[in-house]
């Protein structure tokens, strides 16, 4: 089965593009992810024709939309030229860190995110990953944490779009900013990908828990963030 939004990965290197397809497909097995790496004659560089074929191929295979991601320089310029030529609003380019943006976009597409959600996921990948990186192994939620005085709050996601990439990144950054282990519905709240993989949409009931020295403060901050609706309402 293939899900709505497809991805086209444009790299100077065929191997790099193919490798990234492999990495992203692990987290998004149902997403149509196509590699357009190297030149048509197998050198390092980018190829207008390969990019165009990948994009039109994804569309004719039934994708509703295509998000194009690029590594650097001419990959971006070539992809932009293809988009200008196709003049198709179902195709968009996201200029963001290649690996992170691709994985974030793939996860969003796998979760059924629509075109805007996938584009947003790719575009915010930088901040998101910086946040989750800092949190490192600070995952909370083991049984031990509970007797350590876990604080828990239940609430409703008020923002209509739910916990898509941008709000997920905001929450992750906040959660990572405290000396506390925070979870939302059992997953590490400091990880954007973990949050996005919950696929929480507007109106969803969620449970936020925090443990550790700053559990109280972390819980309050994350809850306030979620209750604010992330500026969407």
């Amino acid at each position, binding site marked *: 089965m293939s899900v709505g939004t497809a991805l086209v990965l444009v790299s100077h290197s065929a191997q790099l593009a193919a490798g990234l397809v492999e990495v992203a497909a692990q987290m998004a097995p149902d997403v149509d992810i196509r590699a357009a790496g190297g*030149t048509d004659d197998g050198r390092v560089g980018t190829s*207008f024709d390969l990019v165009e074929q990948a994009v039109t191929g994804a569309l004719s295979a039934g994708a509703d939309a295509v998000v194009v991601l690029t590594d650097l*320089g*001419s990959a971006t*310029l*070539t992809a932009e*030229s293809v988009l200008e030529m196709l003049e198709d609003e179902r195709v968009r380019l996201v200029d963001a860190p290649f690996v992170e943006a691709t994985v974030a976009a793939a996860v969003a597409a796998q979760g059924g995110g629509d075109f805007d959600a996938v584009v947003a996921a790719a575009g915010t990948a930088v901040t998101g990953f910086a946040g989750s990186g800092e949190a490192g192994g600070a995952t909370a939620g083991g049984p031990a944490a509970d007797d350590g005085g876990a604080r828990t709050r239940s609430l409703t996601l008020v923002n209509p779009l739910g916990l898509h990439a941008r709000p997920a990144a905001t929450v992750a950054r906040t959660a990572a900013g405290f000396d506390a282990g925070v979870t939302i519905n059992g997953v590490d709240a400091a990880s954007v990908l973990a949050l996005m993989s919950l696929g929480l949409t507007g109106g969803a009931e969620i449970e936020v828990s925090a443990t550790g020295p700053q559990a109280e403060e972390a819980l309050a901050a994350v809850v306030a963030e979620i209750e604010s609706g992330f500026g969407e309402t």
Partner: protein
Amino acid sequence: MADLGIDWALSWVRAAAATVTEHREHLLDLDRAIGDGDHGENMYRGFTAVLGKLDAAEPSTVGDVLKLVATTLMSTVGGAAGPLYGTAFLRGAKAADTDALDAAGVAAVLAAGLEGIVARGKAEVGDKTMVDAWTPAAAAAQHVADSGGSAAEALRAAADAARAGAESTDPLVARKGRASYLGERSAGHRDPGAESSALLLETAASAAGA
């Protein structure tokens, strides 16, 4: 004072292909110094492909020729110069909407080409890119057109201005493209794309007999 039509365009393409072949090593050296060392190869491959398509395509207007160059470079160059020149020649082709270009027509084509490069690459004058050659070239052609000169004179002025513009990139620090990763170390070398732009405009002027 003859205007420039399909014959000029065809001899320009052949001359351009010969020039990038002749300067292949030189452009490679320039790109080795501040890039990834492929610009000479990229341009050579692109224009060789254009030559290969020229006969079969049977272009009948200047616009046809520029469009063929644009699409061929776009799909065969492989580096940044592909989409940049591709966009430039595509916009130039749209601006060349008459059978023969007068000085104002030449100026319009160059202005459209420059606009395409800037739209695609977002570089400004001083960023050490081909924009540093194209900007003075388009302005010089416009100046000739405004003062009643011929198409050939407009191209000669453009070629000379592009040459000076390319030379002006020597001391600059690159702010766009691959060379920008080098920062200060990019100073003291000519930008390869500005150099190839000057070469292409020089052939355009020579093909016009200027």
